[in-house]
């Protein structure tokens, strides 16, 4: 299910946004090896401060499994300011009816564990893509420029969602390449994407129901008692060399594994928040 976060509902979804920034760190800094800045396990850049629109894909347990960021092309955006290599020095396209989609990613690790069908990578990608076109169309947007890597480009082509053209050239970005794909926000494209992935339902999440479920989630940090957390932090600070630090981190892993699981959250965020304390 897809959730759209903009200026109006942003305040209700700070926790999901944090999860999204963690997913982006794992994908863009980790798997793709792009030169992006990660702090506290989260990938966040100057365009995230421009009030962008985010679309988040959520699995059945409301974990963030995919995301994308939308920016107006009339204002600062990645092709004009960061990915200018793709345009080979040519001025960027700027049009009020064209938005740029960046930081498009799917949590292949989490989804890869499941079988084909509803939770698969292809399905998650198609849900997100159809939601982007549908939402943008509802905002009066006619085309999307998507900055994607060749693997994502291949996924688009193979899921009956081929870009109708590309801007500039494909350039090397870290371990992989980046390209700017043009896609129209037409009902025709939305229908094709949905038909291919067998999506016969409304992909947008019921936000009121989601907020109720999120409110019912226990706070994860409470599973670790305050004195124990402080002790572990002190151990990290006291570590004299990498070997000692590794031993401490292994201890923390061990302690966290023994902790009772709270809610549907994975252990990873606890470890990260502990490490950054």
């Amino acid at each position, binding site marked *: 299910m897809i959730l759209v976060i*903009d*200026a*109006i509902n942003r305040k209700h979804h700070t926790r999901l946004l944090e999860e999204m920034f963690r997913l982006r760190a794992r994908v863009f800094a980790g798997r793709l090896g792009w030169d992006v800045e990660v702090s506290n396990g989260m990938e966040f850049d100057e365009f995230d401060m*421009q*009030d*962008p*629109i985010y679309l988040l894909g959520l699995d059945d347990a409301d974990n963030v499994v995919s995301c994308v960021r*939308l*920016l*107006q*092309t*009339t*204002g*600062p955006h990645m092709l*004009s300011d960061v990915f200018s290599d793709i*345009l080979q020095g*040519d*001025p*960027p*396209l*700027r*049009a*009020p*009816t*064209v938005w740029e989609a960046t930081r498009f990613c799917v949590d292949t690790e989490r989804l890869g564990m499941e079988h084909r069908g509803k939770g698969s990578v292809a399905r998650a990608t198609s849900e997100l893509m159809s939601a982007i076109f549908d939402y943008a169309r*509802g*905002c*009066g*947007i*006619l*085309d999307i420029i998507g900055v994607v890597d060749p693997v994502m480009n291949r996924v688009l082509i193979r899921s009956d969602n081929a870009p*109708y*053209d590309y801007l500039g050239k494909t350039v090397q970005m870290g371990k992989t390449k980046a390209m700017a794909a*043009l896609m*129209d926000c037409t009902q025709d494209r939305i229908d094709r994407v949905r038909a291919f992935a067998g999506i016969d339902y409304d992909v947008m999440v019921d936000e009121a129901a989601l907020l109720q479920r999120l409110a019912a989630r226990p706070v994860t940090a409470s599973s670790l008692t305050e004195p124990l957390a402080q002790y572990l932090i002190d151990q990290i600070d006291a570590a004299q060399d990498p070997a000692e630090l590794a031993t401490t981190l292994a201890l923390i892993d061990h302690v966290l594994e023994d902790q009772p699981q709270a809610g549907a959250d994975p252990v990873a965020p606890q470890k990260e928040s502990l490490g950054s304390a």
Partner: protein
Amino acid sequence: MSLHDLGAMPDPGKGLLDLLKEACDRLELECGAYAGFNHIDNSVHIAVSYPDAWKEHYQRNNLHEQDPAMLHAQRSQAPVSWSRLVDDPLYDRLFSAAADFGIPETGVTIPVRGPYGDKGLLSGTRKMSSEAWHKHLFRILPSMQVEAALLHDCVMQQGVVMRAINAPSLSLREIEMLQWSAAGKTQGDIADILSISSRTVEVHMRSARNKLGSMTTAQAVARAVGMGIIYPM
């Protein structure tokens, strides 16, 4: 920040109120407002076609500081349909006051971001049922996005400094499209000549029109010739 009513200003702003009214007519909106925020000279520019009584009430009470549509849209890149603001504590106060002046709740605010951190907001409203309004909105939104960007650019081009930094920088593709248009070729012809899709021609044309502040391709070609960007043919 100070409020400038561009509609009331004698020279540079003259025409903006007319442009706003024309835009509202084309979009079939009863009345509208434009607000531009220029972070380079830290000014706010306003043009309003609401009834005078509401305009005066709004200005006298500094309602722009308590207007949920203005406040949210400034922090948004997505259009703000006023119906989404009902949960905001400021909503009832503003719209109950607005109702006294005959301003309906069926409205939208389109935010525009410019390349230098400048922001513009185009609001429009029309009294009709909520259902009819949402249908109307879906139909006009693409044009309203364009009208909002044109009005915003028009305001941001005021003054020598702004004109200089906003000089249009067209991409090679955009110049190519305009040059072929000047040679009398249609969008379909250009797609065939360059072996690209008609949609690609269209997307570059739209960008070129926007950069040249033009509503139509003919106007964009005329301006590009005038500026020496392409050759007359």
